[in-house]
């Protein structure tokens, strides 16, 4: 419990900084909506475009003149920012003890290593939830002036749930890396490489139908905002894959950290 509170306080500033960044992005993004709102010309332009073109730019899913469609386009980027922060918090929270040379101290406390991981993981989780609530709140406040309908609120809750699952995936992977890497400096770099790799993969997989299988490898593709908007439900396959990744990473984290040689 003490570790949990200690970690929460230590990470509070980082949460504030990430919160400020996402609030900035939400405000900038939504402020652009005024150019599209109820603009029939835009809609006419969209109607004229051939299906193939809309498909190619993944715009057929969204009607940019409604706030839901507009938010759907921004969803990917909020998910990206939330995933980055989750991966950073996850990989840092374990490995920082070695960097700050405090690992000897914290591991001589009369608690097991698994409990240390549990407390730290929970603290990082609370941080992720905090960031999610900030995104949610900022979105709600900045769309209020466009008086959205109930469909938008459903879509918003659903996309927040999707972002939360993505955060969990990257948080779990980050914690696993922090626990498993022999060199503490590696954890952050490997987490970064994974983030970049999966993000680029999500872009490549949209380019051509032969490459669609890549979407199974990239968490950014697990939850498509267009599908969320139209069908208002998650694809169970991807929910299962996400749960698998999260459980495997956490089990791996506990197993590797309890028998790890520490860098002092």
């Amino acid at each position, binding site marked *: 419990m003490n570790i949990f509170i200690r970690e929460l306080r230590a990470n509070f500033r980082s949460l504030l900084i990430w919160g400020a960044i996402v609030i900035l992005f939400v405000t*900038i993004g939504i402020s*652009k909506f005024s150019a599209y709102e109820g603009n029939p010309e835009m809609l006419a332009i969209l109607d004229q475009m051939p299906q193939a073109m809309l498909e*190619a730019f993944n715009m057929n899913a969204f009607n940019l003149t409604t706030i839901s469609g507009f938010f759907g386009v921004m969803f990917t980027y909020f998910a990206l920012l939330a995933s*980055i922060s989750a991966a950073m918090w996850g990989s840092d929270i374990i490995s920082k003890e070695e960097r700050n040379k405090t690992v000897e101290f914290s591991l001589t406390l009369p608690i097991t290593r698994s409990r240390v991981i549990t407390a730290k993981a929970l603290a990082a989780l609370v941080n992720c939830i905090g960031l999610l609530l900030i995104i949610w709140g900022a979105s709600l406040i900045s769309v209020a002036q466009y008086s959205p309908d109930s469909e938008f609120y459903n879509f918003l809750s659903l996309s927040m749930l999707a972002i939360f699952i993505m955060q969990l995936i990257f948080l779990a992977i980050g914690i696993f890396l922090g626990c498993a890497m022999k060199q503490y400096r590696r954890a*952050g770099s490997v987490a970064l490489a994974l983030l*970049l790799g999966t993000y680029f993969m999500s872009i490549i997989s949209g380019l051509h139908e032969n490459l669609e299988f890549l979407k199974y490898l990239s968490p950014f593709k697990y939850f498509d905002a267009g599908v969320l908007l139209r069908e208002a439900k998650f694809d169970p396959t991807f929910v299962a894959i996400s749960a698998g990744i999260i459980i495997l990473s956490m089990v791996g984290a506990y197993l590797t950290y309890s028998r790890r040689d520490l860098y002092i």
Partner: protein
Amino acid sequence: MNKNIYKLEFNMNLQSVITWSAALAVLLFIFVSLFSSIATDAELLNEMMSEFPEELLLAFGMDNMDFSSILGFFSFSFLFAQVCLAIQAAYYGFSLVSIEERELTADFLLAKPVGRTQILTSKILAALSGLLITNVVVWISSFVVIQLFKGDRTYDTGALILLLLSIFVFQLFFLSVGLVISLLVKRVRNVTPYAMALAFGMYVLSVFGDMLGESIFENITPFKHFDPGYIIEHASYNLPLVSISLVVIVLSLVGSYLLYNRRNIPAPV
């Protein structure tokens, strides 16, 4: 400049430079290798797009997107190379002097009979040499992958060279901004989040502009200053925007020297 500091710094970064360079070469290879399968589809698309009014394409930022030409597709791929280059340069910038304080070696280094200005110059030059190696690798791999996958299409070498020349200023931007931020804050505990936030923040900002309509905010991001699509399309730089980059670089470098010379360094004991 001090030779010993330069050599030490350069060797310390070497492994990371090699990793980044290899990753960038692989990235470009993978992206451009997709070209031949996409080009046929893209030609059909282009035919359809040519019937649309210019304003429409402008409104959706598709005016300088052409997947059927090798350079058009390369400029799209190059955006992702830019993301990597930005993270690498920002990482070096943030860790350049902060690492000494984090690893408690700052007082050892500063006790040497070398001025702080000299230390900073040597460190910046070492980081720049590392970035230059990556730069050269990107040049070589760009030409190689384009030759490999262009098929019988031709391309405008001048535009490509202009695009590749922009890398250096682009790297310098993130290096110097990272450096000055690391000197502005009291203590950098972990470099990765800072570098990620700077590089990805700028990237997302520029993508927002592309997709959701321009606004004045986007003018601060170098991804806009060196928009690959623009450089390839016009075979020239967007000079007013590029000069913003240059001004920021000069300001941050000058600021870094001023700040580092009067920085209070915490001692370990």
